[in-house]
């Protein structure tokens, strides 16, 4: 279960807004320090470890750069909830170990709301407004990848198990 405070965004938050290209030469920590800068220059001042991002339609279109979800994970985002995601961002997020959830009513969630999120069950409880949402759940096998830190972490875990 994830308990988190919401940072709210609108439609079409693309990869240039999430992780501007000018920082791509930096290492992952450097990239994370500029997360969401294109969408909200003050984001990193407000962001606390464990907070979540809630957005509306088509989160993450544009570049296939894996640095977009890496920036969000690196700055402590616990989960991204949106009405819909661009396909490559969605896959990259899971592969680098960032939980993502598709919630049709994400537009009803507001900046600063407190949520209780259960990714495997697909449930979101808005503690601020009292509303509850059932969204597409993250299947256990995918959650396992996320828990192992992403696709490569999951493969390492499986290789380790084979050896044992």
């Amino acid at each position, binding site marked *: 279960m994830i308990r988190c405070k919401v940072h709210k965004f609108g439609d079409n938050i693309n990869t240039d807004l999430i992780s501007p290209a000018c920082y791509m030469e930096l290492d992952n920590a450097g990239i994370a320090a500029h997360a969401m800068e294109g969408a909200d220059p003050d984001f990193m001042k407000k962001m606390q470890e464990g907070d979540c991002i809630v957005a509306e339609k088509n989160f993450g279109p544009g570049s296939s750069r894996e640095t977009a979800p890496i920036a969000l994970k690196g700055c402590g985002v616990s989960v991204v909830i949106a009405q819909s995601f661009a*396909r490559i961002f*969605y*896959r990259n997020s*899971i*592969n680098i170990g960032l939980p993502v959830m598709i919630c049709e009513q994400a537009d009803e969630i507001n900046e600063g709301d407190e949520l209780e999120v259960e990714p495997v069950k697909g449930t979101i409880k808005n503690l601020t407004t009292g509303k509850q949402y059932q969204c597409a759940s993250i299947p256990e*096998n995918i959650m396992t990848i996320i828990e192992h830190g992403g696709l490569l972490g999951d493969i390492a875990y499986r*290789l380790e198990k084979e050896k044992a």
Partner: protein
Amino acid sequence: MGMTLAEKILARASGKESVSAGEIVTAKVDCAMMDDILGPRIVEDAIKDFPYELKLWDKDRVVLICDHYAPSGTIHQADIVAYTRDWAKRFGLGEENYFEGIGPCHQILAENGYSLPGTVQVGTDSHTCTAGAFGCLGTGIGSTEMAGVLYTGEIWMRVPETILYKWEGKLPQGVMAKDVILKSIGDTGHSGATYMSMEFTGDTIKNLPMDERMCISNMAIEAGAKCGLIPADEKTDAYLAEHGCTKAYEKFAPDADANYAKVMQYRAEDLIPQVACPHNVDNVHPITEVKGTVMHRAYIGSCTGGRLNDLRVAAEILKGKKVSRDTKLLVSPASQLIWKQADKLGYLQTLAEAGATILAPTCGACLGVHSGLIGAGENCVSASNRNFKGRMGSPDGKVYLASPATIAASAIEGRLADVREHL
């Protein structure tokens, strides 16, 4: 509830009786293809801090193809090809699964029996969806994903929703599969099929030769789709057999009661030649709206439009004619095999006599990395798949996508032409 073609293929790949859209499955990969531009060089970078040495899960299912940078246009490109060639040797890939400089990867996969009905193919190139023409779920993936596939032979996939494109009737003279897919993408929009499978059926599709079907599936990604599937039939069998494929495979057909997110119906008789204007593939117009636009360059080639049927159609239109002095027509057959066949059938001779320059089979011009870039202020009408700003060279040039027939007619006139006036 019945299943779509994508659902049937993913049910097989994940060892399940049935799957449905939205479900996430772990699919076994039948073929993993890497190219030179985003292949070993980038994949090795993704795993450079990974503590486990890379071992291929099944080297016979891995295919490596140098096509974007071969023949190389710069020393850096040559170095990348050399690195890729060494990597192939290091991992024991031989003449069955390492190819260099003989054409765009998707065509090479098809000719060598790697795009098999009912199977899953992943590739580090976004046009891996070309395999859909064989009823094979081909899709493009990123570098970390490819690393994962190389280690395990598996990939997680979200079973896609499907949009059904039903084309019925006979295409008019001068109208090709390229017009069918441009029309379909224009109506869908460049993100209209994001996450989804595009499934093409109807007697128009059934009557198309494999060369033409590949053109349709190739461009599914241009509407955001994961794949562009056409049910395999006796034409698929014949193509594979002609190309020496003896591998076993299972052909699936979508169920009549399958669940589709949307159904698009078309009458082929109503279709006229289409052009995708700069700088988006969904900026599609009928030729009647754009004819007369001056073209400095015409390009017939790539994994979209350089197959034998494309060269035949272009040669028939250009036979005994001359390419305009104001236009340069470049022709790049989509593979060495096609080059040889077109040579034997006299197409290359006909095209050259009309004034075309015949190039090596390669991706070069399509993505503007070698073999005929366009300059600032130049317009190019191309049989390839993307017209993004700067795609074929200068960002101040413009790319118009059209069928090989439209391109042949346009090359004669030196401007966008209605091929129906040239038949």
